[in-house]
């Protein structure tokens, strides 16, 4: 018995390096693996961010031709907010409405694909992702055609008197919100799908066995268990939608411009770098605040 017990220990000690050396090598490995990504982030994210932060505090009277002086002009922030608060609130309003619409469409869609689609599952997933194979710009331009004044959709809506004889969709807030909803829908559906796909149908059977009606089963079991996907999906939808400027640009008018359009023009048209940088940081701070509050609430599973 003793002999037998000793043999394997001796063998494993001979065939593998001493434990201390192995542990040492493995302790460094995670950091080595991190290195390329960390370097990339530092060069192309941290440094530019710092530079942008600096730019937001430049003397606003400077220009690209004369150069900017660093004057720690914190006044750029209240100034930018005061001038562009309508676009700011519009961004959050449009993204918020689009998020609600996307949830109403995306949750049932993700649920159907994950739990009911059977062998059509992969095909349907491809259908969700397929629009992403074309460029964002092209997709939005296609919506311009769909919503155009002499398009079939407007014609139909006028025929059934949902729109007046001169009513239009294009160049209205409706068009911008529809564009946002459509363009960011896959970002909501995919994480939701991943969560719902893991949902064990036996838990739904158990709920039903324990007197939960279908509605109660959804509220008490399906929804809480899909929370991780729901949180990830809403964030992936809401953050880019708030900062988006293409939809407002192509489907709206300056009356529908969102904060992204203002930042775009500050950097590329008006060449007002300090203001563009300040607006960028304000947007970032606002989104972080919303996300923070949201996650705090979602963490306690009482977001809805």
């Amino acid at each position: 018995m003793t002999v037998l017990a000793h043999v394997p220990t001796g063998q494993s000690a001979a065939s593998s390096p001493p434990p201390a050396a192995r542990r040492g090598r493995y302790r460094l490995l995670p950091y080595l693996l991190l290195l390329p990504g960390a370097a990339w982030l530092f060069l192309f994210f941290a440094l530019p961010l710092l530079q942008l932060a600096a730019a937001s505090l430049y003397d606003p009277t400077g220009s690209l031709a004369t150069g900017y002086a660093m004057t720690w002009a914190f006044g750029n922030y209240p100034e930018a907010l005061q001038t562009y608060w309508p676009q700011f609130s519009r961004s959050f309003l449009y993204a918020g409405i689009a998020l609600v619409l996307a949830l109403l469409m995306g949750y049932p869609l993700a649920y159907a694909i994950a739990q009911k689609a059977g062998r059509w599952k992969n095909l349907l997933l491809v259908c969700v992702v397929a629009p992403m194979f074309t460029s964002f710009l092209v997709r939005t331009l296609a919506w311009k055609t769909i919503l155009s004044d002499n398009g079939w959709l407007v014609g139909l809506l006028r025929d059934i008197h949902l729109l007046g004889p001169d009513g239009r969709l294009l160049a209205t807030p409706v068009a911008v919100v529809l564009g946002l909803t459509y363009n960011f829908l896959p970002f909501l559906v995919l994480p939701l799908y991943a969560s719902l796909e893991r949902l064990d149908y036996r838990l739904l059977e158990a709920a039903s066995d324990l007197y939960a009606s279908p509605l109660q089963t959804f509220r008490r079991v399906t929804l809480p268990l899909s929370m991780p996907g729901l949180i990830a999906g809403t964030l992936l939808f809401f953050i880019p939608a708030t900062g988006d400027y293409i939809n407002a640009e192509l489907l709206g008018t300056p009356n529908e411009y969102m904060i992204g359009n203002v930042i775009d023009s500050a950097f590329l048209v008006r060449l007002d770098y300090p203001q563009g940088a300040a607006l960028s940081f304000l947007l970032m701070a606002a989104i972080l605040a919303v996300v923070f509050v949201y996650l705090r609430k979602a963490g306690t599973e009482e977001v809805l």
Partner: protein
Amino acid sequence: MGHDATPAGDLRLANLTKRFGVFTAVDDLSLTIPQGSFFALLGASGCGKTTTLRMIAGLEEPTGGQVLLGDRDIARLRPYKRPVNTVFQSYALFPHLDIAENVAFGLRRRGIRKVDDEVQRMLSLVQLDGFGKRRPAQLSGGQQQRVALARALINHPQVLLLDEPLGALDLKLRRQMQIELKRIQTEVGITFVHVTHDQEEAMTMADTVAVMNAGRIEQLGAPADIYEFPATAFVANFLGQSNLLAGEAAGPAGDEVPVSAHGSRFSVPAARARADRGPVYLGVRPEKLHLAGSADQVPSGHQHVDGVVTDASYVGVSTQYLLRTSWGSELSVFVANSGVHQQLPVGGAAVAYWDPRHAFLLPREPGEDDRTTPVLDEPVGASS
């Protein structure tokens, strides 16, 4: 339960049928489960026992037939409208709720707000006091199993369904839970319908066992009755082991049914014959067979078969012998190691004998041969 326990609470399946495409999972099943009994549906996997259970729970819609609780047909009610709860094989505890909320789930769905006392009572019934605030993932398999039980029992269902509830537990825990389940059933007096493939589990716990095969019930009765006098060759070998010798019977003669098998003549009491004419199986359980060195040692009134010992496995409480008969079949013989019997050498001649009152006659399809050697992966529970 008292004297007012009327048949109104019995669970009755009437011509219950479930087909999946061309496959018939449950075939015209009819049976009555008396209120307050511990009933086991026993069968190999794929025999339709779980489908039957799911039809009682409402998780599967019957193709035909009725599920009657008292006089009420509940076969088409949604699961959440039935006074029936299930302990699932996978337990199916809600991972996002703590143990107390898992147990309270059914009460809350029915709008009951004050649940704390009842939850505490249930947790102590299953001996999990103080576990209320933990999550299912923090519990062992046995503990999760008991939470699943408490979660179902708290609703005081008319019928509790148990779908292989002990399947995931290790042997020792399983024994413990068998005793525990039986204690709880006696305590709460609810009808338990227990689905299992483990014949020993069915026999130790249930008042009544139904042996299922291919969507039908082969035999239904008290465990001892089924074991001592099986109705079919399938039951004789699924519930324990049997030595089945192919023979021919020519009708009863007085209280006896004479049988000729492999050139020898035997007889079985008429009361122990499921068939008494044509092709039959003469069956004897391995522990009802005894071994002797030669035919002259066989006590009077016993019948015997000659053979050669080909294997002897010592398993502690007994020694399991294989005896090859002159026509080549191997009989299984369990001899209790009570110190009375001498060990017989492998390769030596021996005689297996039995009291005819322990034998039974079963119908046999023409052409079927002896069924004596046990199938290897079948449980040999009765021997332990």
